[in-house]
């Protein structure tokens, strides 16, 4: 090949090179440090890649001011290459041009160099984005691991707590299959997790009444919670407790609370907590027995006082003068008060301990009311009170407890009489309603002052305005009445104005429903 043809060939290579090419002369300072360079030749694409034009014969420090500061490595490398003759390749970011370049540089002759470079800005960007994404992903991963660890720790803690709490804990799915049972429950029931997990609750945990009677599935708290989707509990006091039957056929009384678990409006299962209340029942029994015994003890001396006074006052041991009669009557009166207090305290403690049982019998409300009025007739006549009765029609006997209904009437009617002045009026209304019997006792007596109305049902509470009218009241009557009404599943309320009178309204369900107890 002739030299001219070669030269043209190489020229065309030079011009068509995609990369940028610059042939430069290095410039050194007095200390022989490379500090600048002059562009001698650049190819066509140099301008495209760098954005620099008219560079031939110019120094880079002119064309890119600040380049020495921003990219000292350029000068270092170019200087080294142009002196040593060793070629090098490197990547660099040229700030003033905002581009990344990949440079390949060699030296054709001493103090001169040729740099061939590519704009790798976009590649760099992609690389950076990738790296950023990688870092972000790694952070997310770390966060997740952290959260996961937290959740697992919390979960482990909860599990530890649940497994170790003293109460029995069971969880079921929405169909009553057991999904969880803790250690306490296993111990109390004498069954292991392996035996009951996945099985239907009602089949593996049998229940009995205290006296061994069977309890239908629908009356069990778990059933009721699943159906009604509300928290259901048994009561611990009074009446019959449910008993769980252990694997070995022995049983123990329990207090059960079942809570349905609802997620986004859908029932997904239940959680039951139960407690062995054998001890509580024993304590209740002991208390009940103590109360019985104490009442007996208190009543014996009062019986003696009562009967001996009676015989003396009747003149059976000789005549008495007026003063003697009077004193004896005081003794009698005091004694009578003691007996009343004892009777009332007994009622209260029986109510609190739930040791009284609510009978379900046929009760003629009107007959009881009439009977109580007859009992109180002496006081009614003494105070010349007018009694108006309004018994609705068709009041059939209801299913309730005779003794307790009687106590309600006794309390409300005797209160009305006690707290109404001479020649006042008492009004008794009894009406049959859809599911209950409604009765009202109204008087135009001294009324209950507004300021104390909220306390009127409190034990031993007596308003000031009645302490004069009836000095020896104990303050337990309304407490007992309210307890009875509630035990019968009824409601009681009153309206009263001081100086004008009071109305007490009571509703008793016709069908002996015992409220709140399962």
């Amino acid at each position: 090949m002739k030299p001219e043809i070669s030269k043209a060939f190489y020229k065309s290579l030079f011009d068509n090179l995609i990369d940028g090419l610059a042939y430069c002369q290095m410039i050194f300072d007095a200390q022989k440090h490379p500090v600048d360079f002059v562009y001698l030749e650049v190819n066509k694409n140099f301008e495209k890649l760098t954005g620099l034009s008219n560079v031939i014969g110019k120094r880079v420090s002119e064309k890119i001011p600040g380049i020495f500061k921003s990219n000292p490595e350029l000068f270092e490398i170019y200087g080294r290459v142009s002196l040593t003759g060793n070629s090098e390749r490197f990547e660099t970011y040229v700030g003033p041009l905002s581009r990344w370049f990949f440079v390949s540089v060699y030296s054709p002759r001493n103090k001169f160099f040729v740099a061939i470079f590519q704009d790798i800005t976009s590649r760099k960007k992609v690389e950076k984005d990738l790296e950023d994404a990688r870092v972000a992903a790694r952070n997310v991963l770390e966060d997740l691991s952290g959260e996961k660890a937290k959740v697992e720790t919390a979960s482990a803690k909860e599990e530890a707590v649940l497994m170790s709490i003293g109460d029995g804990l069971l969880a079921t799915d929405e169909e009553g299959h057991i999904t969880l049972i803790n250690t306490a429950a296993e111990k109390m029931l004498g069954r292991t997790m392996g035996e009951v997990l996945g099985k239907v609750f009602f089949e593996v945990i049998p229940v009995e009444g205290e006296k061994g009677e069977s309890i239908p599935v629908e009356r069990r708290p778990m059933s009721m919670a699943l159906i009604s989707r509300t928290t259901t509990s048994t009561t611990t006091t009074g009446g019959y407790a449910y008993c769980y039957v252990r694997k070995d056929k022995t049983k123990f009384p329990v207090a059960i609370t079942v809570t349905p678990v609802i997620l986004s409006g859908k029932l997904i299962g239940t959680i039951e907590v139960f407690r062995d209340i054998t001890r509580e029942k024993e304590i209740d029994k002991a208390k009940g027995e103590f109360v019985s015994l104490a009442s007996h003890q208190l009543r014996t001396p009062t019986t003696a006082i009562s009967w001996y006074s009676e015989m003396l006052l009747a003149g059976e041991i000789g005549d008495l003068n007026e003063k003697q009669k009077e004193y004896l009557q005081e003794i009698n009166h005091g004694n009578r008060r003691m007996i009343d207090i004892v009777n009332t305290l007994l009622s209260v403690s029986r109510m609190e301990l739930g040791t009284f049982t609510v009978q379900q019998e046929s009760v003629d409300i009107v007959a009881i009311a009439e009977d109580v009025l007859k009992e109180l007739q002496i006081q009614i006549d003494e105070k010349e009170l007018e009694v108006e009765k309004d018994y609705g029609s068709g009041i059939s006997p209801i299913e309730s407890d005779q003794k307790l209904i009687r106590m309600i009437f006794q309390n409300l009617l005797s209160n009305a009489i006690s707290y109404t002045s001479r020649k006042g009026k008492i009004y008794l209304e009894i009406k049959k309603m859809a599911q209950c019997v409604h009765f009202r006792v109204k008087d135009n007596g001294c009324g209950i002052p507004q300021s104390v109305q909220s306390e009127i049902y409190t034990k031993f509470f007596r308003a000031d305005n009645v302490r004069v009218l009836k000095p020896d009241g104990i303050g337990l009557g309304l407490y007992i009445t309210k307890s009875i009404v509630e035990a019968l599943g009824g409601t009681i309320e009153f309206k009263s104005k001081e100086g004008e009178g009071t109305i007490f309204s009571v509703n008793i369900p016709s069908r002996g429903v015992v409220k709140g107890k399962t």
Partner: protein
Amino acid sequence: MAEEIKKKILVIEDDLPVLQAIVDKFTREGFKVIQAKDGEEGFMTAKMERPDLILLDIIMPKMDGLSMLKKLRAESLWGKNVPVILLTNLSPDDDKINERIAEDGPAYYLVKTNWSMSDVVAKVKERLNRP
């Protein structure tokens, strides 16, 4: 006027003042009164004396009233049928008591503090006049 045969009442009561009050009152009312101070003594006395009616306390030492009543009811035909009035200070809402009462059928259950003597006498007379 022919002498009325006095009816015989057996009072079984462990509290001596209360026992004495009943004895005095019923004697004055024209009854023949015999007494016992616990269930055991009461049982023996009842068997021996065969009273027309028994006034029986419940809580007593040695043998309580309900146990005595059960024993009495099982003892003989007479024991099964003799009228018994429980005269006690126990409140009548214990299930066990009610069970025994249902089984052994006393005529009445009177809580002493709620009954005057004259009312008790009236109840006794009422029961005796019933066949």
